[in-house]
């Protein structure tokens, strides 16, 4: 297994497209969630309906003490989409290049190879998470400095919890992309269906079903995208472009959300490993 981890990491770190994707992800996250919001907050359109207090809240939400909320909002939104795409690319390309057969006639065995891939993606998700937090922290510091405010940072414990939560969300989405690419043996279908699920399907289906009764609300509490949102909300809701427009506290606590996301992660990984182990490579 260690040999497979080393090999997979060797392969991942040399793939420029992944680093470009991660760089683009960080740039967009900071550009949209910080600087675009800052411009809107400081230069509201004439006749804007927002009250001064709301604009002020939008602006102070960009300061360092809100960096965890902002980063988690990013992880559940824009950055999460990139994580899904990274997961798809990591596995889908193996099928499109036919390198899956090159890999499988080497030594480690199929399960070890999948283990190596998932371990490498875990490390990559951590790099994405840390890049996001560092970029967000720098952006918030710049904005606070521009506004002449002193930078008050969250506690280290809260920061570590936030990083852990963001990593879990991003790693789950990466593994989801990996699993879809494994199932469809290609990238295009996996990205399409993955985006549709993350952005629309789960929310749309439960958005309709919850009107039929509380049972469906309870069922939704065991689905991954909902729990990514609950985990994010457990740190407080961020202000900004992709802030959740949901009133009231999240229906489940952070521990529940972590467990559900972890279960989904393990489930998707297990299905992927089973598919790789049992399917013919033609």
């Amino acid at each position, binding site marked *: *297994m*260690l*040999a*497979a981890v*080393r*090999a997979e990491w*060797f*392969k991942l770190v*040399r*793939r*420029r*497209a992944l680093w470009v994707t991660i760089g683009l992800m960080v740039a967009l996250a900071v550009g949209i969630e910080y600087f675009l919001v800052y411009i809107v907050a400081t230069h509201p359109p004439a006749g804007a309906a927002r009250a001064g207090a709301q604009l002020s809240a939008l602006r102070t939400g960009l300061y360092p003490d809100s960096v965890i909320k902002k980063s988690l909002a990013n992880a559940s939104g824009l950055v999460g989409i990139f994580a899904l795409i990274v997961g798809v690319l990591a596995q889908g390309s193996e099928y499109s*290049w*036919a*390198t899956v*057969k*090159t*890999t*499988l*006639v*080497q*030594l*480690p*065995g199929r399960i070890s*190879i999948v283990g190596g891939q998932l371990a490498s993606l875990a490390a990559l998700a951590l790099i994405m998470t840390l890049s996001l937090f560092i970029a967000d922290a720098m952006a918030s510091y710049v904005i606070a400095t521009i506004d002449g405010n002193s930078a008050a940072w969250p506690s280290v414990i809260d920061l570590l919890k936030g990083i852990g939560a963001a990593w879990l969300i991003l790693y789950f989405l990466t593994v989801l992309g990996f699993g879809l690419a494994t199932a469809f043996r290609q990238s295009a279908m996996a990205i399409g269906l993955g985006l549709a699920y993350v952005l629309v399907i789960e929310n749309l289906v439960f958005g309709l079903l919850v009107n039929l009764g509380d049972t469906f609300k309870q069922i939704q509490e065991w689905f991954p995208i909902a729990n990514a949102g609950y985990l994010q909300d457990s740190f407080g809701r961020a202000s900004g472009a992709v802030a959740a427009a949901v009133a009231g506290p999240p229906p489940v606590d952070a521990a529940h959300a972590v467990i559900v996301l972890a279960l989904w992660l393990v489930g998707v990984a297990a299905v992927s490993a089973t598919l790789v182990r049992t399917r*013919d*490579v*033609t």
Partner: protein
Amino acid sequence: MGSGATNVLLSRDAARVGGARVEVIATPETTDLDGSHTVVSVPARGATLVETHELSKQYSGGVLAVAGLSLTIRAGEVFGLLGPNGAGKTTFLRMLTGLIKPTSGTATVAGGSPGSPHSLAHVGAMIEAPAFWPYLSGRDNLRLLARYCRLPDTRVAAVLAEVAMTEHAHRPTGTYSTGMKQRLGVAAALLKDPALLILDEPTNGLDPQGMVEFRNLIKNLGTGDRTVLLSSHLLNEVEQICTRIGVIRRGKLVTEGTIDEIRGGTELIVRAQPADQARLVLEKTYGADHVSVRDGAFSLRVDMSQTATIAKSLVMSGIDVTELRPAERSLEDVFIELTGTEGGS
């Protein structure tokens, strides 16, 4: 199985145990928790290296690609699997490497089940067109594969030199020509210094000069103790490279043997005068079913050991024998005869 620990092919020594030559190879399955290695024997030259029994593969669409194929390949052979396109050669090789699972039948490759780490430790394979990570250089592609197998980077340099690719190893494989990819594919298959090298249509897509170079390369690889299993639909390629061949048609092995055995067959050409009398004698002795006339000569399907008896019986009957020799059919004749009109080139 020893443990989850892996330590592979870092040592390879030859020894004699009870008079028989065995190779000592450390494989994942033979590495114990404490890192010590258990002795595993790889068949000595002439011993069975690949054995399949009634191996079959039916795809989900109902296509029967391989139908009860039983085959034995011995260590040290350069075995050619010959058959027209779509005969089932690639499917068979995929089963031997564990890429696909047989529907029925059994196979043993290098002492293990196909695709198991034990088997793969001794097998290097290039199945169909070699596939590489296009953004990595040739050298980095091999370094990556070496990491999977826990091999040192020095092994990469050695195999690059063996296939004459050192000069181009720094370039991304996405920029390689077909011939360069094929060479790198062979280098990848050689990384583990395998006892069995499986090459599936290795000269596909090469120009004539490239084919000649590649054949020489494969011939060199087949010298010594290494066993080569080569599939091809190119008759002259197989004829030039292989020591033994199997002809496969519609997933079935239709014949197997050395090239001379297959080409020579069991036919004797006889020219004798007077022809009418000669025919009577031959048909009376061997049966009309075994005698045919071709280009003014008789063709007899009999055992070669009968040559002297045939000559004697004709002469004793007062017939002049002007020619008596084994039929020399080309491999192409045999191939067409065995595979019908499916071709091959």
